[in-house]
């Protein structure tokens, strides 16, 4: 088994293997340094073709229609619409 360490020489470690010391090191993600990720703020909105834009607009209309339909049906079942 292994032992807990408080500090690790990261420069020597490749794919979890410390070649200098001849052992492997397991680091929990929350104990590791924050990793460099994709900068989504810098990318801005996704470029979309006109067909994708219209498809998403249709999808939005479909969702709104279905939510209204469900709300109407639910209100009807609860007796709030008077029938």
């Amino acid at each position, binding site marked *: 088994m292994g032992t807990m360490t408080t500090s690790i020489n990261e420069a020597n470690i490749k794919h979890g293997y410390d070649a200098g010391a001849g052992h492997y090191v397991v680091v929990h993600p929350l104990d590791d340094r924050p990793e460099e990720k994709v900068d989504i703020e810098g990318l801005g909105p996704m470029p979309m073709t006109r067909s994708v834009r219209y498809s998403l607009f249709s999808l939005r209309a479909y969702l709104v229609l279905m939510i209204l339909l*469900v709300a109407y049906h639910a209100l009807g079942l609860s007796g709030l619409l008077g029938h």
Partner: protein
Amino acid sequence: MTNNITPTPAAGMALETDAPVRGMVVKSRWMHSLLTFLAVFGPGLIVMVADNDAGAVSTYTQAGAQYGTSLLWLVVLLLPVTYFVQEMVVRLGIATGKGHAAMIFQRFGKWWGIFSLVDLELVNFLTLVTEFAAIDLALTKLGVDPRIGVPLIALGLFLMTVTGSYRRWERIVVFLCALDLAWFVITWKLHPGAGEVLRAAVRPTMPPGGITSDFIFLVIAIVGTTIAPWQLFFQQSCIADKRLRFSDVPWARLDTFVGALITITVAGCMMLVGNASRMHGLHFTDPAQMAVDLGTFFGPLLRNTILLLMINAAVLGTATISLSSAWAYGEVKGWPHSLQLPIQKAGGFYAVYLLCVGLAAGLVLIPGAPLQLIILSVQVLAGVMLPSAIIFLQLLLNDKELLGEYANKPWNNAVNWTIIIVLFGLSLVLAAQVAAPGLFPGLNGGTN
């Protein structure tokens, strides 16, 4: 990766670039692999097992009680489907370090972001009400006053989340997930017949009464229960909060696959428990009553275990669905939103969580609350939302500018578009039938 990259800490947390890295030293390569997997393990298992919530217990046991083992093959078929959908979230979460709501907001704009958030919060809240309704029902059958039991469970759900430690929260929830394995013991006690089960699992068969409207809707309910919109938001936020790294992708995929395997086999067990009630000539009304009825044949231990598992399923569902709401809201509002933060530093995030749990628990305790109406609305709204949620996921996963080498491959797209088309067809039928029952005169049956 060919795009811009930036150091990303857990949401709302300060960068700790000077903090020493703590780790565990091991001698062998296989021990390194095992311990790395265990360190990464969690989000995939939790999202999958929590998907077997109170609604799932009801749907799967009802399927078994009405159609025996006829629908086992469908559950097996859903294993790759649920894995492929959630695997996309794994790549997206690890590559960006952001939650799903934040991604939609930033890549599709404010209006789509708000729209998706409102949809998610609405369906999540209605689902939470059904979770607490199940807790209420099971507690009553156990002889516990829900007016005491429901607030206590809600308090427990709040306390386990506000500890300021992601790891502590994860350990508690993984323990609750492990309790779900008791479904295997119950199924084994009921002697379902291994040969018949294996045959039904691999060979699609038609139910004894043929294909009826009830059967079609139960099929739709099973699909809708196994893949839900909140899962996409939950797992991506969970991965971002746990700060999984690019090197963790293979382990996170394995975590998701193990979770999918467990949830599908547990779902099969629930169906077999329902089948046992059918074999004893019992009429199915709900899973709590089924537990009581089976108890007359197999004793109070089995009855109480099923009722407790029903509560556990609802608790797991509540813990994860409330968190998916809180994470999504925190991401969009730009609030600190991490389980690693104490309540003083992420007040808004924990307030949303508390509000979701508290309101849902309070609603089921109101005498005469329209619970059946809420359950009906949950089914339809979840069915309507699911395909559109997956379309956003699919578009994001094809965004090479965003994901580079982690973007979808052509075979990913072929599989995913097939899943989307099938889900869209099913959701249209379900939504149209429930919202306007007179639309298809030939399909007037309901299942739940």
